[in-house]
């Protein structure tokens, strides 16, 4: 229970950071943290297959796509 409460707090903070930062790389890192927390939830909810897929596809691969996208475009949001 304690673990879940801590994770929930971190998750909500990351959500707000992802929503409000102007630096896309920061937002991607926040997204990575969200993905990781969800992967931990999957593990806690007795879904090791899903946790593994989430870790590999939902976090690493997605982050790779985003970073490639940012590198080919722009890092900062415009005002």
């Amino acid at each position, binding site marked *: 229970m304690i673990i879940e409460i801590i994770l929930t707090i971190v998750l909500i903070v990351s959500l707000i950071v992802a929503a409000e930062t102007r630096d896309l790389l920061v937002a991607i890192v926040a997204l990575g943290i969200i993905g990781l927390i969800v992967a931990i939830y999957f593990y806690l909810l007795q879904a090791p*297959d899903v*946790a*593994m*897929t989430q*870790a*590999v596809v939902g976090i690493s*691969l997605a982050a790779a*796509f985003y970073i*490639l996208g940012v590198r*080919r475009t722009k890092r900062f949001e415009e005002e």
Partner: protein
Amino acid sequence: MKKLKYVYKIAGLAIAVLLGYMLLQALMEIPFGTNRMFVAERFIFEEPYEVGAANTVTAIVVNYRGFDTLGEVTVLFIAATGVALLLHRERGIRLAPTETTLVVKTGARVLLPAVLLVGLYIFVHGHLTPGGGFPGGVIVASALILMYFAYEEYVAPRSMLHLLEGIAGLVFVIVGILGIIVYGRFLQNVFPLGDFGRLFSAGFIPIVYVAIGTKVGSELAGIIHDMIRRGGESE
């Protein structure tokens, strides 16, 4: 102008919160953690005899709901094809060539077989342990990313990747059509179930997972390739 921006923001937030509230209301009527399996009961209790995979999730993914998985593989295939279609007009050099030292190059060469082996292990053992075709395929594809980091001049053999993904996809379809030929039903298992818990068991699951792993690996490698290189070279 600035005022309008806030109006827009608040309206967006209001819609999001409204939908979220609706969802929460519905969720409050769904008790957490209780057993409400209906269809799934059969999947759990009959699966060892009907499919023969130790991992129930795999049995569902590949056999009971194999059709969804075929669709899922196809979605990834669409993504690979679509990325190649959309980024083709960019001609030029590879994005951000990397300067690497001998250490990284040697390290990559040592790691490459290990990474490939791990990926292979994961998708071959999909019916026994957690994992399976998708994570396995991604790990195989990451070997290619490693090559890109280590060697600035490295170019993936794109036509070979296409050939691989096409053939791997065909294997899945052919396994399905065998079902039509023998039983008149797509994707019906025609392979022996074997001994429960062994590597060569669970009917067509190992075959399909190897096909999926190969396909996912080659497709993701293709996507990364198209995103990193500016797709200039002819195929």
